[in-house]
């Protein structure tokens, strides 16, 4: 018996390793296919967009020969497939080209803008989850009662009020009138120089440097926009939580538990919510990924230098290297988030096995 156990363990281990390797390989392959598809579609769309990319470089006034030269320099006179081949070739050498609008390498831009968005989206999702899940549970438990309607209306306001409307109102009240939070931007002007970027996320950098004055200031700046994004995702998260919870609460095991005399709190938070957790995570992950795409309007109102505005701005000027780079980042985020939530399903939901 002992021999047998000793025999199987390494075998199982290697089998598990193999399974893991296959899974990882599959994931990488899927990632590559998705990203390639994304790049290809974006690239060709970029070429049919009715905006002249040369304009962003030379402006409206340049003489004809300057225009023609720049067009050639940008490789726009080559056939489309050739341009794409060149682009993909460069990507394999980790060269994503330069952005026209910032005249910096796209990689450098993304490294600057993505952390700003990441910081905001993470905090927003955190807030949305912390408030949204309990609200959703409350709504499900008190279905049809006041709490349910209250949560619904709160959520719907978050959904139907345009985010710039809420944002400006928030600024007016909490920043301008009450002075509870700091204004637009990521830091006060006075603190701008005191921080050396490591991760690009001001909060993390300040904490790493142990500079709590900067940290406080950064919190004060991010509070309002992240609360706003949090509110936005709260609407969705609380709705979906309510729906999943209603589902669980109608299951037999809940009745059984009640019959057994388990406390209602335990049934709700211990059993029903735990079972609802897996689909809920998908929902939260999706909403997180969505926030990571960057909210153009929030970034505009709060003068937040994030990815959303970077991509939109680039797109409007047909700055395709920048658009492709930004799209790629978003693509990676989405694939990662989706894979993660799929994995959770496989691991934790017995019904999907």
């Amino acid at each position, binding site marked *: 018996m002992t021999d047998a156990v000793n025999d199987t363990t390494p075998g199982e281990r290697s089998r598990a390793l193999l399974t893991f390797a296959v899974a990882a390989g599959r994931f990488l392959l899927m990632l590559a296919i998705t990203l390639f598809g994304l790049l290809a579609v974006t690239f060709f769309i970029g070429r049919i967009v*009715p*905006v*002249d990319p040369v*304009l*962003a*470089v*030379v*402006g*409206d*006034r*340049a*003489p*004809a*020969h*300057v225009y023609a*030269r720049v067009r050639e320099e940008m490789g726009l006179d080559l056939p489309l497939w050739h341009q794409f081949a060149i682009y993909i070739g460069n990507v394999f050498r980790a060269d994503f080209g330069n952005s026209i*609008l*910032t*005249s*910096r390498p796209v990689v450098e*831009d993304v490294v600057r803008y993505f952390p700003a968005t990441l910081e905001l989206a993470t905090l927003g999702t955190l*807030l949305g989850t912390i*408030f949204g899940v*309990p*609200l959703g549970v*409350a709504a499900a438990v*008190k279905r049809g009662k006041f*709490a349910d309607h209250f949560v619904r209306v709160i959520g719907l306001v978050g959904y139907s009020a345009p985010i*710039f409307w809420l944002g*400006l109102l928030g*600024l*007016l009240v909490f*920043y*301008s009138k009450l*002075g*509870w*939070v*700091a*204004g*637009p*931007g990521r830091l*006060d*002007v*006075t603190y*701008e120089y005191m921080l050396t970027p490591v991760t690009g996320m001001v909060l993390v950098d300040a904490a790493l440097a142990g500079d709590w004055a900067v940290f406080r*200031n950064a*919190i*004060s700046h991010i*509070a309002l926009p992240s609360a706003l994004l949090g509110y936005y995702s709260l609407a969705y998260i609380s709705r979906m939580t309510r729906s999943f919870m209603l589902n669980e609460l109608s299951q037999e095991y809940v009745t059984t538990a009640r019959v057994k005399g388990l406390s209602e709190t335990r049934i709700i938070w211990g059993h029903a919510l735990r079972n609802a957790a897996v689909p809920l995570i998908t929902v939260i992950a999706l909403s997180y990924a969505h926030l990571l795409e960057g909210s153009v309007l929030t970034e*505009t*109102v*709060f*003068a937040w*230098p994030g990815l959303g*505005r*970077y991509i939109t*701005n680039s797109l*409007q*000027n*047909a700055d395709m290297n920048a658009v492709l780079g930004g799209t790629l980042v978003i693509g990676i985020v989405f694939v990662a988030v989706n894979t993660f939530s799929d994995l959770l399903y496989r691991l934790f939901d017995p019904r999907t096995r």
Partner: protein
Amino acid sequence: MKRVATLIAASAMFALTFAPAKAETPPDTLVMAWQFDDIITLDPAEVFEFSAAEMMGNTYERLIGYDLKDVSKLFGVVAESWEVSQDGKTITFKIRQGSKFASGNDLTAEDVVFSLQRAVKLDKSPAFILTQFGFTADNVEQKIVQTGDYEFTFEMDQAYAPTFVLYCLTSTVASVVDKKLVLENEANGDLGYEWLKRNYAGSGPFALRQWRPNEAVVLERNENYAGEKAPLARVIYQHVPESSTQRLMLERGDIDIARNLGPEEIAALKEAQGIKIETGDKGGIYYLGLNQKNETLAKPEVRQALKYLVDYQAIADTIMAGQVQVHQAFLPKGFLGAVNDTPFQLDPEKAKELLAKAGLPDGFSVTMDTRNTPDITGMGEAIQQTFAQAGVKLELIPGDGAQTLTKYRAREHDIYIGRWGPDYQDPNTNADAFAANPDNSDGASAKPLAWRNAWDIPELTKKTRAAVLEQDPEKRAAMYEEMQREVMETGPYVIMFQEIEVAAMRDNVSGFIIGPSFDANQFGLARKD
């Protein structure tokens, strides 16, 4: 629910502990909120965007400058004096001695010659301002020549009006760069182009320290500046895209100057305590371009009729209040020879008569490509309503700036509503755009506004070309006046307004000067008390 309430209360407490102290910018730092996502480069040989031009204007020096209050008064900046040769083709400049760059290097004729040659050789968008005098990358070394440590000659292909040349030398493309520093950073013979795009090598009152796209531009006092040292240690441009946000920040005191406020915001701030409003005439012209490829718009009566279908004064008083003044000639106020008459006003009856004469008694339908910014869209909608009074159905096609411009440049529009800003302070800049069209074919190499609207004007083009060679300023002014009246009467442009720039600032700020062009906004002597 109780838990949730507790949670909300707790986070409110949390937020309060992080409440910032009363906002105020440091006393030696001027903070401006501005939209500057148009900056693509900081190389003065390439800069052609409004925001970057202003930054260049305060960080670099040019050969010549003009009086911001009276553009007709020219004076030397880097140049101490100049002399035009007998044949009018060569100008000899003497350079002021004792100036230094921010780097500490001396500013000599060598730097000036290098800068001008460099701009011509790089041949970026604004290079035409110099190359129109006959320079090319091949001949510029023979034409712009250093003749002494502090002297050089500037030889043109024709005897241009001296003021024309001098005005062109006031523009950013003629900024003097630090030859030594630039060449230290040269790569592959690019004359330091890749480096200077993001760096600084000038001698102005401020030095450019940092540009973070879509975030901030930081200027610091140039301690080596030859003129009166700047009172401010630092000027920070903060990119704030939303005008309402700029307003709140100004009210709160987080910024000292808000640069992109709308009419309603300005009106509200006029009442506010601690805030003052300053304005200045700018050279920008708002106009409608009527494409002559459209058969209806090509009829002279129709062009004329449309000029009677805009309620100029009402728009200037309401939708664009404080941002524009009615102006109907192609040269903005303050330019040599500018015509300030406004013969057209809203007159639907007259327009109907004209349309009837053109065989269109019931009006017609036409589209207008409209940039989706609030000001342009607002004007577009107002024009749409007054056009309708004579039966002209105007369909607005909204689009982003680059999109509408792409269409305009391809002559695929019916009507384009746009804004045109002069490239330099000489009247030729707008005459060349509005009243010259050397080749009206689709494949033409020059594409001025007349070309974009397919307006074929060989005679007027000749007049424009002749005006740059006229040496007598009075005769020259008369030529431009005549051209403006002709364009006003028959041209395919409904010229409507001249731009006014407005800045709202805290009232402890003084010395911020709004000049007539974007590179002329100056804060070298601005201070906060």
